């Protein structure tokens, strides 16, 4: 009797263990920060349309949806996903990280890749020129010659300062700000004419943050220099391969495109800069 009970419970434990391993997909098993839980980081605040209402756990918004889809394909059900927030610096500081992966529109660059690891891109961002109506009335056009003459302001922590130099090459040195919220404030104050940001963020800022914002034009995705967003991993994290496999699957079966269509649908319609 005792022996039978023991054998039974041992068998059950084995079965349970096997189940847990199954649910977690062999690839990610034992590679996460917390056993059986995927810890994902994003910014605080996280901006529309990447995360809706600064609440990634809702799964609403492009990056929140991508994160949950990647997690699902790595074998983590929605309730096995935990969110945390970091600044850009926390993601690149040396040493152990507080997250399994981090997504907050991190542009993939070879220089950054030396300190941290990137997944394959989950989004290719078109760069957009955001201005206010008075600037359009003053004659600004989506043409390089016209853009060069504008006073530019950019968010310092992004790739925009480097992109603007190669895409436009403004005549006067751009002003740089802490984040896109401060850039919008400088636009409102008339201290700058124009800013460069990824198209979805620009459309949101034009429609919601500014009263009279206009997306003057765009540099389409896929042109050089490309601006692609990737998931950020601690350098050498083996989980990267699992996430890449999940992303490849999502690209192949159209899931990624469906998420993009759901959250970034209006990302067309801005004229292409000549």
């Amino acid at each position: 009797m005792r022996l039978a009970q023991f054998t039974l419970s041992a068998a059950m434990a084995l079965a349970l263990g096997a189940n847990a391993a199954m649910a977690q997909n062999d690839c990610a098993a034992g590679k996460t920060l917390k056993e059986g839980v995927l810890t994902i980081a994003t910014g605080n605040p996280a901006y529309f349309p990447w995360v809706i209402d600064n609440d990634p756990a809702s799964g609403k918004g492009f990056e929140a949806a991508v994160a949950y889809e990647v997690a699902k394909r790595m074998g983590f059900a929605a309730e096995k996903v935990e969110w945390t927030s970091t600044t850009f610096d926390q993601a690149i500081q040396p040493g152990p990280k507080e997250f399994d992966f981090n997504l907050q529109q991190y542009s993939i660059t070879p220089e950054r890749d030396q300190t941290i690891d990137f997944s394959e891109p989950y989004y290719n961002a078109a760069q957009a020129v955001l201005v206010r109506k008075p600037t359009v009335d003053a004659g600004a056009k989506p043409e390089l010659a016209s853009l060069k003459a504008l006073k530019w302001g950019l968010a310092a922590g992004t790739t925009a300062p480097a992109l603007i130099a190669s895409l436009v090459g403004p005549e006067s040195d751009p002003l740089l700000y802490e984040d896109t919220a401060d850039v919008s404030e400088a636009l409102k104050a008339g201290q700058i004419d124009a800013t460069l940001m990824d198209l979805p963020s620009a459309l949101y800022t034009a429609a919601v943050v500014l009263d009279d914002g206009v997306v003057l034009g765009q540099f389409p995705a896929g042109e050089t220099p490309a601006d692609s967003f990737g998931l950020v991993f601690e350098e050498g994290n083996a989980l990267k391969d699992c996430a890449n496999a999940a992303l490849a699957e999502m690209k192949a079966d159209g899931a990624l495109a469906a998420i993009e269509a759901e959250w970034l649908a209006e990302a067309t319609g801005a004229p292409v800069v000549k």
Partner: protein
Amino acid sequence: MRRRSLVIATASTALVVAAIVLLVPLAPGWERVQKAFFNGEVFWKTFPGLVKAFLVDIMIFAWCAPMIAVLGLVIALARDARSPALFPLRLFGMVYNDVFRGVPVILVIYLVGFGIPGLGLPRPWNSPYIWGTVAVVLTYSAYVAEVYRTGIESIHESQRAAATSLGLSHWDVMRFVILPQAIRRVIPANMNLLIALQKDVALLSFIGPVEVLRQAGVYKSLLANFTPYLGAALIFLAVTVPATRWVDRMIARQNAARS
């Protein structure tokens, strides 16, 4: 005897430095830390750009310092107004000091730097350089005013009484008797504020100007490497260390003259 203590001091310093240099690299994460904070390649790539950006700091500092010295003195004098009819002036001085010493500099910079141009000023009058300067001058004047006030109050009341009995007016007493002594007394304290100011002008970067810290931040996010901040720190040290030593020497000289 003196020679012996010099030898001991040198030896113990060398020992401590050697311990740090030899032991820190033995820590398991040292290689990663070195790559992220002490990266020679990144350092030399970014240093010239940082030096160029530091000129912006020097420029802002150079025009802020005299304005602060003057406005601070005016506020201090307002606080010292003694006639009952001038009480509003005194009240203003008090409220001004309380508010601007109590509010974070960065809030004043945002409020003045974005808020006032937002009222609809045309270019170039909405420049972040102008309104950022105003914000820094407003804040630092409050501190400097307090320093001046302690100087003014340190001059014994009997001097005022003596000067008044000679027939000097209130402002003449200030001008010829109190201020010449008071200002000289608080020079070292004001020098300390000057050194603090020299680092705080970097806060103007929040509203647009690309000075050395901002430039370091740009390099940091482009290269995902913290070494540019090391370069910025070295540039700051190259200025603050000699300035601090100079102030120290001045204080020592003043103390010697007094005793």
